[in-house]
């Protein structure tokens, strides 16, 4: 892929130019709001804001719930991704569609759905009440809402990763009389790990940013259900500078984690004959 800029054809230059322009437009569109946010807050003020109890509560809640949600999604999503990647069964198409639905559903709509399903008067409400569980307005509700909206990302990424595992490795494992579970844990998962990690990262990011379903299903209560996005939204209605400061904080957190994952991933790849080409 080493076409040089000195290629004789003007049309090639034009195409490259268009690539650059398109990229510049997108980078500006995506980057300018971030830059604007950062520029608005003087660094000193940011550190001072960190002492605000409400902000710390929201931050703690956001981290707690998003991590829990991601763990839950990973534990519950892996089996189903594995089944979808390796087997066919009646109703598979339906299940696939259902699992993708939360991605296209407006979050507030998801919130209403969650209320109608797991709320006190919801379809499962009576059952939950029998177990002494009342979900709305609790921190658990926040986690449930996050799991609902973020699960599809992990399942899709993991399924793709498992499907991409070269059949030859699976055949080799079979000839060595490896059971399906052993093959899964010793061959498939290590090879699919980068996809899994990327899926988990997206899940975490989506869970962290979740707003519509949370405010509808879990409500808004500092210390219990008021996550960072809710706190920012509410602050926006009274104190713009506080809202911006919190936004920058979330930004820093997200960038930190995403960068961290990018840096760590290459090191986690299996080495030797099973190694993938870099840049994958």
């Amino acid at each position, binding site marked *: 892929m080493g076409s040089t800029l000195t290629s004789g054809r003007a049309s090639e230059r034009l195409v490259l130019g268009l690539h650059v322009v398109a990229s510049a437009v997108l980078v500006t569109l995506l980057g300018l709001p971030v830059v604007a946010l950062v520029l608005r807050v003087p660094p000193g003020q940011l550190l001072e804001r960190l002492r605000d109890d409400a902000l710390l509560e929201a931050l703690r809640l956001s981290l707690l719930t998003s991590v829990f949600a991601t763990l839950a999604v990973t534990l519950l999503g892996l089996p189903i991704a594995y089944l979808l990647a390796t087997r066919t069964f009646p109703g598979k198409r339906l299940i696939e569609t259902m699992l993708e639905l939360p991605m296209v559903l407006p979050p507030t709509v998801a919130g209403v759905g969650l*209320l*109608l399903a797991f*709320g*006190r*008067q919801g379809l499962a409400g009576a059952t939950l009440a029998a177990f002494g569980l009342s979900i*709305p*307005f609790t921190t658990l509700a926040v986690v449930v809402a996050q799991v609902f909206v973020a699960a599809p990302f992990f399942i899709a990424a993991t399924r793709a990763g498992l499907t991409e595992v070269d059949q030859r490795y699976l055949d080799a494992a079979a000839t060595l009389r490896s059971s399906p579970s052993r093959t899964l844990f010793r061959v498939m998962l290590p090879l699919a790990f980068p996809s899994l990690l990327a899926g988990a990262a997206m899940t975490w990011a989506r869970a962290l940013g979740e707003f519509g379903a949370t405010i509808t299903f879990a*409500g*808004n*209560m*500092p210390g*219990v*259900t008021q996550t960072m996005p809710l706190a920012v*939204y*509410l602050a*926006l*209605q*009274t104190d*713009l500078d506080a809202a911006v400061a919190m936004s920058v904080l979330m930004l820093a957190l997200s960038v930190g984690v995403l960068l961290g994952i990018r840096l760590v991933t290459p090191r986690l790849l299996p080495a030797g004959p099973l190694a993938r080409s870099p840049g994958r």
Partner: protein
Amino acid sequence: MKRISAVFLLLLTAVPALGAQTSAAPREITVYAAASLTEAFGELGKLMEQDSLSTRVRYNFAGSQQLAVQLEQGAKADVFASADQRWMDYVRERHLTAGPSKIFAHNRLVVILPKSNPGHVRELQDLARGGVKLVVGAEAVPVGKYTREMFRRLERRPGFPPAYGDSVLANVVSQEENVKSVVAKVQLGEADAGVVYRSDVTPRVAPSVTALEIPDDANVLASYPIAVLAGSADSLAARAFLALLLGPEGRRVLAKHGLTPAETMP
């Protein structure tokens, strides 16, 4: 006097319109109004379309605090109607209004319960009982501020325990950012009780809730100020909206939807 000046104002705005007549593109104004005004202003909008200026009214209904901040951030609107003076002052202090604001309506609070009454609330004192799930507006929202004031007033009445206000507020499970969200949570049966405006118990809402009245002397009188905005692109139509609202038709519509029209000046 107010009525006469309102009619006079309307006539004044009609004169140039009579000259401009049929060729005009449909006039349109944008009104930022508190969520509790949804039903009343919706009907007023229809009346505006039918009057001589045939103005279309577009609305942005939300918590007054949200509207005020949006206006501050440069949102384009012609009229702002707030549910409390606090947010009108906020907008005025930032030189966003054209002229003084007028109180055009009042409202009162009411406690609503889901019809099934899951919290077994029979009287106001029950709201302080442990475990009752109360949903109210956030402090920054007019209804939220009024709610907290109302509970403090109830506390001072005979028949209410001394720490009533604190106990009730400890039962809050969610602080909504506009009153309609409070209504929704009660309608859905998720909240045991919610504090909203009387006008929020609309014909559509009434079947699913029970209202628990608050004694007048403890209740808060919410006052709604309205003002034309400095950035209005069509202040004529904006003032016509105000004139309609403050006139007999407007007062009728407000009353119909559970609001109390403000006293006309003698």
